[in-house]
């Protein structure tokens, strides 16, 4: 009897019939909390605010479990900063098309985790659900896999095509039609790597012999013309970084020694301009030079940002540095010198009128935010589950 009574009561509670105001509630108590619905999944807005960043965690210690975190840097608590995540397997690279509301990721799987048959795919994630809405099977064993690169994937031709950089170690670019999600073709880029924008329907790659290979595409995706530029650097003695900041139709490629090469990418063939020195003459004795992984980015006000370190020497160019220097690209002039809390490995700058700077601190793998105007430290974002967030990107 007692048991039957208790069971009926619990059953009632579980199935949604609340017993209120009688045996359970005292006179002065509020009514009980209502039963809540289950199965509700959050979604994100179709357009990401400028304060949102895409943080690429390569998972260097667990590469099958790489992740991209969508982080709102304007929020003050972890719970409101983390908007969501999606998995990207085997240090994949990503790029975003805000027009299509899609994020693309080149990734790789084996049927048994780290072994078994291999499959390479381009996954199409929906920005609002962070769930895959499609995929393109890539040619097997070709897609570039290494430390994260911003120019391993490139959207071209007013958003119609996506280029995927290959490195097997033979180099080429797989061209995908984003409307049909089918492969249009594969363009060999012998001796040259990655896929940088040039013109509206073409791309350039960076070559071991110190020049660009510029590829013009026909309307059907076939190669219209491939042009090699003049040699402008020596990959042994005067190497450049493969990481540029693109402002308007100019890509700024820093060199390891501290020059920057402005490259006109507005036409179908890359045009390399006169390099200038990033380091003011008075400071050159301290051997300042760029260093890092995702070491450079730009804002919408014509400035680019680059991680710098003193005492540069052989082997130090990937290690990051203690400062971020900000340049007015048109004036060829440093306009800000931001001293970091300790050290920076990669950085990203948000779009829009009031850009903020995100810097990856490799000592504890936290993200540090800085005011781009004053150079002041704003806050640290951490504890969101990250392991090795080696590349960060402002959302588009």
């Amino acid at each position, binding site marked *: 009897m007692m048991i039957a009574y208790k069971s009926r009561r*619990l059953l009632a509670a*579980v199935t949604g019939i609340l017993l209120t105001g009688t045996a359970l509630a005292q006179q002065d108590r509020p009514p009980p909390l209502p039963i809540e619905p289950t199965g509700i999944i959050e979604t994100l807005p179709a357009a990401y605010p400028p304060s949102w960043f895409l943080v690429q965690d390569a998972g260097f210690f667990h590469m099958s479990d790489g992740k991209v975190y969508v982080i709102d840097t304007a929020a003050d608590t972890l719970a409101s900063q983390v908007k969501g995540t999606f998995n990207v397997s085997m240090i994949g690279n990503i790029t975003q098309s805000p027009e299509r509301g899609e994020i693309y990721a080149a990734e790789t799987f084996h049927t048994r985790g780290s072994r078994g048959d291999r499959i390479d795919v381009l996954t199409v994630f929906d920005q609002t659900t962070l769930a895959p809405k499609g995929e393109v099977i890539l040619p097997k064993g070709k897609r570039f896999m290494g430390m994260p690169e911003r120019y391993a994937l490139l959207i071209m031709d007013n958003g119609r095509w996506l280029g995927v950089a290959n490195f097997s170690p033979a180099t080429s670019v797989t061209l995908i039609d984003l409307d049909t999600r089918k492969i249009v073709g594969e363009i060999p880029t012998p001796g040259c790597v990655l896929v940088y924008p040039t013109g509206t329907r073409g791309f350039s790659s960076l070559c071991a012999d110190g020049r660009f290979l510029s590829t013009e595409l026909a309307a059907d995706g076939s190669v219209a013309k491939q042009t090699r530029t003049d040699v402008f650097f020596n990959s042994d003695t005067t190497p450049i970084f493969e990481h540029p900041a693109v402002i308007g139709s100019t890509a700024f490629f820093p060199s390891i020694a501290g020059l920057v090469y402005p490259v006109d990418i507005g036409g179908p063939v890359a045009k390399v301009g006169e390099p200038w020195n990033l380091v003011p003459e008075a400071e050159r004795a301290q051997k300042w030079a760029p260093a890092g992984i995702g070491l450079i980015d730009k804002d919408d006000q014509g400035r680019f940002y680059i991680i710098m370190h003193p005492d540069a020497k052989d082997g130090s160019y990937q290690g990051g540095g203690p400062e971020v220097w900000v340049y007015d690209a048109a004036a060829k002039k440093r306009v800000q010198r931001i001293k970091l809390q300790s050290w920076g490995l990669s950085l990203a700058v948000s779009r829009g009128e009031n850009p903020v700077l995100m810097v990856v601190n490799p000592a504890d793998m936290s993200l540090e935010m800085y005011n781009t105007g004053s150079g002041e430290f704003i806050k640290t974002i951490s504890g969101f589950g990250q392991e090795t967030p080696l590349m960060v990107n402002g959302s588009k």
Partner: protein
Amino acid sequence: MKLLDKLFEQQTRHLAQRSSRRGMLKAIGGLLVGAGTIPLLPVARAAAADAPGRPTEKGDPASCDYWRYCAIDGFLCSCCGGSENTCPPGTEMSPVTWIGTCRNPADGRNYVISYNDCCGKSSCGACLCQRDEGDRPLYRPDKTNDINWCLGTTSLAYHCSTAIVVGVAFEAE
């Protein structure tokens, strides 16, 4: 390893217990496993209001000591793009689950909490929280949090855990 430190720091200092009470839950264990599949009427989200006549609760759903988490073991969905009772974007909520009975300090009542896991993405990694109050080994599926409850979902990848109010619990021991 900071997250782990935090987790096990909690364990090692023997988390102060809530005064949750459990009644005859075992008797309806078979029913509660799967409570998430019972169609429940959508209700307005309870605000933590002091207005008389309004349901109340207090606390930070991103904190391990939030009252609903008394029997939880996992990553808090509140820190992963979801909330205490919703899943992050792109995940799937497990229809089967374990339950706990937690005392809401704001109204002094014990509630039945369903800890539905969100599945289909790998470990969220944020806000790991282990409380275990009333938890039992896995021969008691209705009260065990050591199982991967991503069962009945298309993916078994565990991402995070919610804590959903599914009823008022019987109050006597």
